[in-house]
């Protein structure tokens, strides 16, 4: 417990330093407005993909419905901030969006997470599609036209803060007794059950946390782009998030960060290539997957704990 506090405080310090450094770079002009936009989009993608990585990489359940939960967060937060256009409204919107999304995930997760592999992928895709169709037909969501004039509340500091918060929560979850239970289910469901693990419960829990995270990402998306429509949350969006997870390495949060950043920068650079952009983007993906099929980082994880251990070890050697 005490040790975890030490690691978390270290992470917190790294995050604060990161924030100061980025702001300094903006101040001296290394990062311009365009750069900041890219960072916001990367940040939102990190949040979306970290949640999906928890589901796919750590609990071992395949989901193609992440965009559905993202949509729930986007719409709930957009509606709330449209009437309360303050940072407080944004906070309420994100919490409410995450809560609704978690509830929906709980309801659909209990029956669908009994399915395996391909069936689960199809079922989650269906869930996302149902969510999209509901949004398309409700009055409050303004049907196919969607919502616009959503206040710009997902500023760079807010997005940065939420990246830190969601990552800290998910990483701490993974390293807890609960996270171990989730991973044991991924490794071997029968063995896990024979250790007394209620496998359905832990699969559903990981799914619910992942869905809540997706909703936070969706909320930030809505309040940054300022217009949303049901078509934004189709299967292609789920696949875009999946690509980040796979590219970074399934089961590596560090990989998710790197992949989101690489893809974000790639996208920024390719902006000037017009229609060729999608071709080059796809080509880059194919090449990466051919030469690094386990993703950029495999399951490697940057860990302050290992850093500490290495440091104390070399110190002991130095003493001796």
């Amino acid at each position, binding site marked *: 417990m005490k040790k975890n506090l030490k690691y978390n405080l270290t992470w917190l310090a790294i995050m604060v330093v990161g924030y100061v450094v980025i702001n300094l770079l903006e101040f001296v002009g290394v990062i311009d407005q365009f750069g900041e936009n890219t960072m916001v989009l990367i940040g939102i993608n990190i949040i979306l993909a970290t949640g999906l990585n928890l589901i796919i990489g750590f609990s071992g359940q395949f989901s193609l419905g992440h965009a559905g939960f993202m949509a729930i967060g986007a719409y709930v937060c957009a509606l709330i901030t449209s009437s309360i256009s303050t940072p407080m409204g944004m906070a309420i919107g994100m919490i409410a969006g995450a809560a609704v999304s978690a509830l929906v995930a709980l309801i659909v997760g209990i029956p669908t997470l009994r399915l395996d592999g391909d069936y689960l992928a199809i079922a989650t895709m269906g869930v996302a599609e149902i969510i999209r169709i509901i949004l398309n037909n409700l009055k409050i969501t303004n049907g196919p036209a969607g919502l616009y004039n959503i206040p710009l509340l997902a500023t760079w500091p807010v997005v940065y803060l939420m990246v830190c918060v969601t990552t800290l929560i998910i990483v701490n979850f993974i390293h807890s007794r609960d996270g171990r239970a989730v991973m044991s289910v991924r*490794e071997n469901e029968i063995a896990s059950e024979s250790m007394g693990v209620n496998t359905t419960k832990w699969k559903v829990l990981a799914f619910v946390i992942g869905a809540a995270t997706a909703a936070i990402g969706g909320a930030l998306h809505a309040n940054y782009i300022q217009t949303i429509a049901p078509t934004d949350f189709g299967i292609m969006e789920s696949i875009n998030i999946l690509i980040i997870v796979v590219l970074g390495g399934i089961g590596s949060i560090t990989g998710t960060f790197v992949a989101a950043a690489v893809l974000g920068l790639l996208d920024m650079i390719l902006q000037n290539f017009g229609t060729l952009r999608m071709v080059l983007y796809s080509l880059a993906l194919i090449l990466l997957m051919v030469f690094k099929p386990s993703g950029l980082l495999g399951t490697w994880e940057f860990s302050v704990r290992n850093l500490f251990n290495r440091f104390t070890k070399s110190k002991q050697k130095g003493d001796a």
Partner: protein
Amino acid sequence: MLLEVEDLSVNYGVIQAVKGVSFKVNEGEIVSLIGANGAGKTTILKTISGLMKPSGGKIVYEGHEIQKQKSQKIVAGGISQVPEGRRIFAGLTVLENLQMGAFLRKDRDGLKKDYQEVFERFPVLRERKNQDAATLSGGEQQMLAMGRALTAKPKLLLMDEPSMGLAPIFINEIFDIIQAIKQQGTTVLLIEQNASKALAIADRGYVLATGNILMTGTGQELLANEDVQKAYLGG
């Protein structure tokens, strides 16, 4: 009596794998259940641990019927198992595997000491503590599976062919360890195809064939029995 199985029947769809089996395990014993491939040994063990539900009969543990209970409750009651084929958590570290063994334990204080005990019994696990379990050799994985079951502090330990696929020197070590586990007061129900070794360390044994108990006796009696020798000891 710690465990009593009465007239147990278990089906896979229309296939009846266990056909009215009865046996018992007293506290402090090693009881060996031997039988050829497909006799129903694994099925019996899975049913005791709650992973399968019987179609008939009773399983009485510490005076309570448990055949309808969920596996979580059965594990919490003190029955843990070393499953067939080890089934370690390959992507978790050795230590995390042991921690999973203790998943349901309420007395978190004693845990550190118990991990130490497991490490003393299986020193190779200590050396590999922070490695992925997938990197262990087959014999080491078997030790991990046993260590993992022991960190649950079971009253009754179920073992399904712990010697499977191991070199003779490892097999001897495994059987020594099973005896040591008994010395410490844990009751063992051992399932084995290696009948000579399993009967040699057993207080009592049962011979199972196609879902029925054929014979029972002390370990030594069964070892000396001609039919058993012919069928299972290559004699």
